[in-house]
């Protein structure tokens, strides 16, 4: 309970700091949001009216205070670009991004297990090491482009753009994978899976390499510990030794690495959604940057901040589950 209160308090502080930083950017960025809305040839009266409407002439402190006040009411302001409330925009694009992020995380976790096992099995193999260095050193925009190029453009195995091949499908949750099943349209789910595979793989690869490496290292340390010898001395099977005595004790460092990688995934989302035309928050944010749409950028940053705090909390909880000596 104390832990939960501390976490929420921490989240509020983080959000305040974040909102302040993003807000300060407003005065530094040379782009003019008014011109972005009104266009370069708008008459001065229109510009003036928009300035008035956006409250840009007020002192910064007042603007920030007003922003915080609205924030408490769930109002993130009006997007300069789409002219719609930012909150509504985010609500519209969030499911697509969440779906992609979750699938990437699950795929990344699976990949890291595979990577750790491969490294463990073929210890010191040059092939494995080269593969790991190769994947690990490829920047995400390059791996996303390569995946799209080979599997979509050259081989045509998988679709390379958008979320769905069907038009006009909307489900109750916004998660196409689930909605397909909920609405009795398994074909939709399968199609959604095909669409999500390449972008999710592009995001999962760096997670898999980094976490897999860390897991392999931790496992090596743990398996040379005296208590593993005790476990083997009891005549337990290797599987049982690995599962009950190895993995759990090796979990802490890979979990920390996992939380770090998930944070990097938010940055990767911007690139990957752009490359694969994935209609999510990342794409929305990229477009917002291009048009200096500060309320939208701020809103997306806040959402990612909240998501990161949630991920971090989940990781901490799972760390304390893995090692009961850690008090939350």
């Amino acid at each position: 309970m104390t832990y939960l209160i501390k976490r929420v308090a921490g989240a509020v502080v983080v959000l305040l700091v974040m909102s302040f930083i993003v807000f300060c950017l407003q005065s530094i960025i040379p782009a003019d949001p008014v011109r972005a809305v009104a266009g370069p040839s708008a008459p001065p009266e229109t510009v003036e009216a928009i300035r008035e409407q956006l409250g840009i002439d007020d002192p910064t402190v007042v603007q920030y205070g007003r922003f915080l006040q609205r924030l408490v009411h769930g109002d993130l302001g009006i997007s300069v670009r789409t002219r719609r409330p930012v909150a509504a925009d985010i609500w519209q694009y969030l499911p697509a991004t969440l779906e992609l992020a979750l699938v990437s995380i699950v795929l990344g976790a699976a990949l890291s297990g595979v990577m750790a096992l491969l490294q463990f099995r073929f210890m010191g193999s040059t092939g494995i090491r080269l593969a790991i260095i190769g994947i690990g050193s490829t920047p995400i925009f390059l791996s996303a482009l390569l995946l799209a190029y080979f599997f979509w453009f050259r081989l045509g195995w998988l679709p390379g753009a958008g979320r769905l091949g069907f038009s006009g499908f909307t489900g109750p949750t916004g998660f196409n994978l689930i909605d397909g099943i909920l609405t009795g349209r398994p074909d939709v789910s399968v199609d959604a899976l095909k669409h999500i595979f390449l972008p999710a793989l592009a995001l999962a690869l760096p997670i898999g390499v980094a976490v897999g490496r860390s897991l392999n290292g931790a496992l090596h340390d743990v398996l040379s510990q005296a208590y593993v010898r005790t476990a083997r001395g009891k005549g337990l099977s290797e599987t049982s030794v690995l599962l009950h005595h190895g993995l759990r004790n090796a979990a802490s460092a890979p979990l920390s690495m996992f939380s770090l990688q998930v944070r990097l995934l938010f940055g990767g989302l911007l690139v990957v959604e752009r490359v694969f035309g994935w209609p999510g928050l990342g794409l929305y944010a990229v477009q917002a940057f291009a048009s200096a749409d500060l309320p939208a950028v701020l809103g997306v940053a806040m959402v990612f901040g909240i998501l990161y705090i949630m991920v971090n909390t989940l990781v901490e909880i799972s760390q304390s589950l893995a090692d009961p000596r850690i008090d939350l």
Partner: protein
Amino acid sequence: MTTLSHRTFETATTKPVLAIKDLSVTLSREGRRSRVLDGISFDLFPGEIVALVGESGSGKTSIGLTIQGLLPRESQPHVTGSILLTGIELVGAGAHTLRHARRHVVRAISQDPMSALNPTMTIRRQMRESNGASNASIADWLSRTGLPDPDRIADSLPHRLSGGQRQRVLIAMAMMAKPKLLIADEPNTALDVTTQQQILDLLRDHAREHTAILFVTHDLAVAASLADRVLVLYAGRIVEIGHIRDVVRNPAHPYSAGLLAARFDFNSDRLRPLPTLPPERGHSVNIESACAYATRCPLAQPDCTAIRPALLPVSSHRGTAACLHSEQTPFLAKPGAFSKPWPAKMTQEGTVLKLSNVGKSYPTGARSFWGFRRLKPVLKSVSLSIKSGECVALVGESGAGKSTLLRIAAGLLAPESGKVSRFDDLLPQVVFQDPISALTPWLSIGEQIGERLRALSRDSDYRRRRVGEALNLVGLDPVLMDALPSELSVGQCQRAVVARGVIVRPKLLLCDEPISAMDVSLAATTLNLLGDLRRRLGMAMLFVTHDLAAARIIADRIAVLKDGELVEVADPDTLLAAPQTAYTRSLIAAVPALDTRQGR
């Protein structure tokens, strides 16, 4: 080879639990293969306790691991010979056979109870893994090892238990599987002295019933208090087998005799250097056709380096020994008997360290909402002063606050209350418990020792000369200046650490359990070195130890620390003759003495 086991215990009908024939093991270490066991043969019978005695590196631990099939895989073990465990051949056996043997026939208790239990699993689950026991049986086995409140213990995680409690848990865990063979690898060295004896009693009492015990130790006195027979191991070979009382009274092999002479207890002469095993001398020989001990042996003759001696019956007792000249062993002059006594007392007037009412506490337990933790006092108002040239031993069990006091004296920790006065321009130098981890692995010995001279001189020739002098002072060859710590033995590393401490002569040297992880002979050598240095250089010393026998030998005064308070400070003879507190008496009683009458 003739039949090697000296059968004192078996009757004609009993079959051995363990029959080892001509067992050899080679391991690869950093790319080089080395033979850790060489032609080992012996039998072990039900209900028998056999001690395996030798210095570190003699291969005594490897025998246990080989029987369990748990030699580290990365060292690519190559095993030849035969191990028959209850009639089943283990050499060359498949993983399944070995696992079956570990599950049902052989169990082990390891050296370090602190790391031998899985830290994230409750005791109950770990015990259940042992043989799928019920809760009642788990509680029963825990209480049989003398643990109070077995249900609470069973539900605890290992880090809530003390070292002694954990070792009891490990013994219960091994015994509940009712193994035919129990391998106990120095099960008591990592424990407090008062706990050590209890663990030995426990093993003796509980394991007698049809379990054979292979008891690995470096201390013949501990072996004598427990075992029936003893195998003395040197460089992977058995050099002597016999009834423990025979070997302790009339050792036939010069190495056994040397081991016995090197151990020290309350009866050792503290006015002169302790006898030690002779060091390696002369060029190395091809040990395939030589006695491995020949290069150290005081009795060595030319034939010792030409013939590999077999284990043959000896005249001095009913056992066997592998020595061509064993009939001369009884005439072996007690090494060190004619060594010169230490110079007379050299404590001078003047104080080098004065601790007045020093107190210190550490946070423990869970953090509160604001991140504060409860403070547990570790030192409560300790006052102690050390005179110039004096050696004070600080004795107590783990958790008494010994190391904290030493760190405060060294200036590594600030006391919370009280005052520390040092009367030296230099901070005191510290010699830590583990010499290997006290040296930086990638710097040469000379660089590490010479580091402290950087402030004095930029002249690298001068520094090399001073480092060479310091190495000579601690009895190391100055050639080792350019060696890395990994190329040195533990004993050499400890000497290097001491050299680093004394290259710029401190008025006070602080030693934190410098011998607790060493075998007897190395411990005696280290005590001699420190005793010699402090007298030659006129250094005062604070020597932290849990071993009263070592404290008595090195120190001019002994201070007994219990729960953060000094309960008694006296000179060694007074303290041992008339201990003032029950705690001191229990510490004295816990030191094993070499007494052959005891045990049977």
